[in-house]
């Protein structure tokens, strides 16, 4: 009996030591360590996002890591994030709905959720097709520049909206959204950290 009760916290600390995947957080998320403390996995932001129509946010699952489960992540396969150059610009329903401060207000021009990573081996344009859909849909000047029919990605300009990932017609997709270069609210200071 006593042993059994002991097992619960032990199992918990063991599970939290398992590796977790880095995910792309909603706009205005505080630094990851604090985020995991503040976020109560209530899912309100996910619902607020879906209420905009398609919704990019979804709760992390077990594959993202046990400590991540239930926390929100951006999934561009569902929909792009509309926080920059889109429907939610200047409104941020996810941030406004968060009751715990895990997500905080962020000005549109400060938003950078991450950046895309390109796999040339899957890219239709590289394989000789007529694509460049990514360059067509990207709302950021200079983030994707076509050269000889092939996209060139400039991750410093990319805001991580995921439009190109969503629209990429390659199967499997030639693009993945990564948190690389994300801009997060820095705890204890006004402003942002990269």
């Amino acid at each position, binding site marked *: 009996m006593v042993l059994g009760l002991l097992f619960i916290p032990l199992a918990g600390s063991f599970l939290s030591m398992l590796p977790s995947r880095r995910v792309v957080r909603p706009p205005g998320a505080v630094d990851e360590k604090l985020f995991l403390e503040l976020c109560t996995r209530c899912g309100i932001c996910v619902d607020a996002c879906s209420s905009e129509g398609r919704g990019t946010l979804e709760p992390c699952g077990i594959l993202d890591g046990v400590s991540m489960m239930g926390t929100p992540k951006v999934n561009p396969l569902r929909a792009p994030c509309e926080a920059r150059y*889109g*429907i939610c610009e200047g409104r941020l329903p996810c941030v406004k709905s968060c009751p715990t401060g895990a997500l905080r207000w962020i000005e549109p021009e400060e938003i950078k959720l991450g950046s895309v990573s390109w796999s040339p081996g899957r890219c239709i344009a590289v394989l000789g097709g007529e694509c460049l859909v990514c360059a*067509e849909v990207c709302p950021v000047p200079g983030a994707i520049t076509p050269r000889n*029919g092939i996209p060139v990605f400039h991750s410093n300009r990319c805001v991580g909206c995921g439009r190109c990932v969503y629209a990429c017609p390659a199967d499997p997709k030639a693009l993945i959204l990564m948190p690389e270069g994300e801009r997060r609210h820095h705890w204890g200071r006004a402003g942002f950290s990269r």
Partner: protein
Amino acid sequence: MSGGISRRRFVKLLGGAAAAIGLASLGYSLGWFSAGERAVLERSISGESNLERPLVSLVKGRDVNAMVRRAIKAIGGIEALVSPGSRILIKPNVGFNRPEAVTSPEVLRAVIEVIKDADPKEIIVAESAVRGYNTSNNFGVTGIADVVRGLGIRLVDLDKSSEIVKVKTSGKLLGEVSVFKLACDADVIISVPRLKRHSQAIVTISMKNMMGILPSDQKGMFHVLGLQQCIADLNTVFRPDLAIVDATEVMTVSGPGMGRMVPGEAILASRDPVALDLIAAEYLFRLEGNENPLETALNVPHIKLAAELGIGINDPSRIRVVEERVS
């Protein structure tokens, strides 16, 4: 054809043999395919507008209303095309949420007003945006929604409609194409694009604009199969009966989302989308300072391929361009 365009479609069951039908019905009962996938529709395009010597009007000026009216008048007038009682689909380009990348609301308003005069049974303005953009939002932020609803016309975000049908093409790569049913139901299709550059299609004018009647997976498939040929193939069944190009402000150098905006101060119109796209492309390349604008336009693959499929004429010596200016 004052009687307007008649279109016949009929449902063709996949497979002829009883065994195939049996298998298909078994598949259907097992839920292998949805009802929409069992039928392939056929759609005939108007033969009448296969004019041997197509007319293209190019009207310059600043008064958009007068220009649109002149441009349509110069190619025979709206009465020649829209018979009372027909169902009209107007397809503007509202693929993005930036005003400079979409058909301008003023041009669309002028087009709707001209068509209204012909007393059709129904006018619908419909679009499915570029993947990753929300069509309804595009309608709202670009001012298209205000104009269309203000005129009492039905505005349809095709992405919200679930009815999709497959239609046979007589193209080379696309055996059949999935489209929103609403587009298939129209008697007359009027393409109203903005004149723009396109990263992959080179230009996007009246024929490329027809991609906005496709569900997003089908749009993506065009890029996988070969965009230029697919645009031509699509136009074998969804060839605009009339096209009016907004060249008031033209997106040059790059596009279709962002480019260098140049005042074009023109409206072009034709019943031959191939001839129209050729002349409009030439106009665009000239604005870019291209030394051989016509040559460059003739080399736009989808315009050439569309001509090869008999969708229209791309031989400049056979195209009659009516240039006018309204003040």
